[in-house]
């Protein structure tokens, strides 16, 4: 039941928010996200004692063999927790902002949270597909209405890209459905489907393209920098912190278990694509002058590494990916909060118009340094353990892959440190003279992020324990 609540609370709160006025939606959003965080922690506790009680099945379309089937494994618990925390952080950060049509804004934010949670909890392929699409619709409206100047065209491209990917996945899902012994969409039937290697060879691509567009992996990434740049920053936080994890999640939950031979056949190709993406995105990030685009490209690089590590497919690399999914989510949301603050104060996002902000906004500067370092993966921050495990796993798979992917780490240090330097150090200008430091809400959100960065950096064991079950099962598939 807890699992169903995780979807229902933001869904109902979202619908109610549409009808509220004034600061009603804000308060409701805060209450709903606090409640989901509490419940997500509750599922974690339940998972350690009685994991079976997290599953819930109800009849939906019996003729089709599709059921409303939700459940949680370690990975699911972790991602639901991430989703809940992400929306809480977003709501805290923007508590003092006033958006036009705030009721619709908060309503859509909450609905997208419900959709995302639905994706992470679905154990029925059709239901998974439906939530996968549903998570997208509110985000489409959010970006198109509250985004930057070029928002309409950019968001539209994003929508068509992902929609096409999902339709291909739908074809794959239907095909596999006909191969299942009992004509059912349940996860168990899908993993037991009779798929010969020839089928798996092309089925792999139907699924992989859908997931790769979402992550995004080179060469399916072209929507991403534009969308991150044009979206309102709160939405970018959800997009980059949680939504891209849908792609990684899809690969681990559905692609590897259902099409293991296909994945084994194509894993080298997939890894090569990821590595090209890492190097390419890092190089572009180095020469970016736009703060939002810089972080967008750095995100492509990080996600590329995670995707490569999934296909290296040994227990270590998978565990690294799973932990990193959570930590990357936290770190990148932290970075976006700071971007939101800078944009709110300066109204610009070009790096050469910034500088010297450390003097005017020392607290923000400290937070930026800590979170950036975590994003590079410095030891004792949360980014370290995941990257270490992923590289170690990738090394066992192939030295050369590891060597090229390792370039990404060095380059990420280059552009991240460059960014810190340009933003907070150096000479100030007229614009940055007027900056004010963080407000209480922003400080609270960033403190929460930094606490998680340090705690999980020093003591990552609880998180590793949570996901060890998933990585153990998945890594034995091929």
């Amino acid at each position, binding site marked *: 039941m807890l699992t169903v609540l995780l979807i229902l609370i933001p869904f109902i709160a979202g619908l109610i928010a549409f009808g509220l006025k004034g600061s009603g939606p804000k308060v409701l959003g805060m209450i709903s996200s606090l409640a989901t965080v509490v419940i997500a922690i509750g599922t974690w506790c339940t998972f350690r004692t009685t994991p079976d009680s997290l599953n819930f099945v109800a009849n939906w379309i019996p003729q089709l063999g599709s059921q409303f089937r939700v459940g949680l494994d370690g990975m699911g618990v972790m991602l639901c927790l991430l989703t809940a925390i992400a929306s809480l952080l977003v709501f805290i950060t923007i508590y003092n902002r006033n958006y036009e049509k705030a009721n619709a804004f908060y309503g859509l934010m909450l609905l997208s949270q419900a959709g995302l949670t639905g994706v992470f909890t679905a154990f029925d392929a059709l239901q998974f597909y439906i939530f996968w699409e549903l998570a997208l619709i509110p985000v489409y409206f959010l970006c198109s209405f509250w985004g930057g100047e070029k928002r309409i065209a950019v968001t539209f491209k994003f929508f068509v890209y992902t929609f096409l990917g999902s339709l291909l996945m739908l074809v794959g899902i239907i095909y596999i*459905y006909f191969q299942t012994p009992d004509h059912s969409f349940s996860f168990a039937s899908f993993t037991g489907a009779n798929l010969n290697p020839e089928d798996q060879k092309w089925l792999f691509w139907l699924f992989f393209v859908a997931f790769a567009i979402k992550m995004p992996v080179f060469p399916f990434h072209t929507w991403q920098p534009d969308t991150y740049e044009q979206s309102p920053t709160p939405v970018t936080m959800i997009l980059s912190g949680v939504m891209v994890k849908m792609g990684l999640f899809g690969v681990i939950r559905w692609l590897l278990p259902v099409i293991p031979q296909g994945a084994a056949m194509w894993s080298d190709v997939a890894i090569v694509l990821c590595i090209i993406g890492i190097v390419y995105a890092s190089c572009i990030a180095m020469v970016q002058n736009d703060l939002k685009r810089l972080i967008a490209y750095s995100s492509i690089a990080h996600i590329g590494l995670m995707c490569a590590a999934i296909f290296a497919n040994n227990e270590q690399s998978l565990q690294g990916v799973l932990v990193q999914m959570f930590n990357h989510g936290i770190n990148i949301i932290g970075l976006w909060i700071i971007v939101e603050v800078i944009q709110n104060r300066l109204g610009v996002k070009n790096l050469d118009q910034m500088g010297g902000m450390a003097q005017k906004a020392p607290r923000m500067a400290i937070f930026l340094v800590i979170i950036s370092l975590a994003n590079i993966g410095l030891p004792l921050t949360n980014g370290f353990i995941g990257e270490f495990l992923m590289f170690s796993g990738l090394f066992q798979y192939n030295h050369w892959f590891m060597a090229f992917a390792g370039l990404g780490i060095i380059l990420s240090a280059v552009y991240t440190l460059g960014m810190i330097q340009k933003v907070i150090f150096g000479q100030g200008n007229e614009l940055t003279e007027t900056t004010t430091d963080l407000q209480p809400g922003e400080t609270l959100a960033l403190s929460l992020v930094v606490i998680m960065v340090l705690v999980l950096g020093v003591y990552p064991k609880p998180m590793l324990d949570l996901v060890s079950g998933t990585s153990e099962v998945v890594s034995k598939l091929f």
Partner: protein
Amino acid sequence: MNALISTALSGVVLMFVGLFVRNKQHIKFYAIAAILIAFIANLAQYPAVEHGGYIMYGMIEVTKFGVLFNAVALGAALLYFLLSGSEFEKVGEHVADYFALVFFILSGIMLAASFSNLLMLFLAIEIMSIPQYILAGADKKSLKSNEASLKYFLMGSFSTGILLMGITLIYGAAGTFEISGLGLGAESVHPLALCGIILMVFALSFKVSAVPFHFWTPDVYDGSPTVFTSFMSTVVKAGGFIAFLRMFHTSFAGGNISEHWTLILSIITAVTLILGNFSAVFQQSVKRMLAYSSIAQAGFMLFAVVAMNNMGAQGIILYSAAYSIATIGVFAVLMKLKDYTFEGFNGLAKKEPLLAAAVAVFLFSLAGIPVTAGFFAKYFVLSAAIQHGHILWLVIIAVLCAAISVYYYFRVIIAMYFKQGEPEVEPVSGGFKAALILAVLLVLALGLFPNLLLCWM
């Protein structure tokens, strides 16, 4: 059978009503009452055919499937009357006649869903078509409407001729008109019959506006009074498909003509999808865009005819319902606007939030986005094709086209929600809003629980 009789009778009665009743509002209520009666009469027949249909004099076969399709068609027509019934009086003087013609078309559709004899098929197609020629030209003073009517009439009669030729050839080969005894499913088919089949496929493709027999569609749909376009492009089109499916599903039973058949129809389907979608992208008028989108949607419905399996039959039912409700809804709102271009929708969300939200849901449904009826409609026809096994290439083309379709459907959504403007909207009544909400709820209900409809199959 009940539905056939009651719609035909209602048509005749309504013609006379026009002589005695002058109040146009009253005529509309009579029409709505008549269609409700037909709907209920049709449902009343369901228990009798639930465990197997029956044939009447070798001419008509009443089946569960036919009754279900009739229910969908009558339900859609009811919704159409509720939403657009008051638009009839804007077309011209003879409101009662228009309603009567719509009822005649409906009786043609009922016949198309239950014929078991080629002659009946011919009758059904003619009964469906002739009132449409009149309706297309109902706006007598408009040149475009006249052009539409003439064009439709010429092309339509030509294709009916081809249909008749096909029927003759098949009769020559088989010696019977009964579709279950045509023997088209046998190992080797008589060359005459093969020619006949091809001619019939062409003629029926014309009726459902499949490419390359679609040239009449945009002009006719654009030129006809919008209120009739809304009906012709939805319920009538679905009727064409049911005839198509019934004809070949029954006559091919158990045979292996499938290879040629699949090839010809796959090609027709593929070009229909590609051409319909690409042409819709370039339209400036929403009405014309909907005309091309109806060609594109016909491409999806053709999947059911290509695949010829049970899933496809279910798909046609669901697709007809989903597509008809959504398109009738969009047209109903379109008719309230002064400007039919995309710009005419600018800023509608601010001025009329309810209308805009309803149109958005309908367009989501047409694009096939989950939790709307359109998703499951597409799901079923794609499933039918995948189950068929040999036409995966077609499925891939279809999903590419579905992604393209998002472009033109979302242009309307973008205009309504993200662009500024002052659209000129006629004031809408409370009844209209209620009917619109009902349509939205139907779309969402079928999107969540398609078995509401399919459990009757």
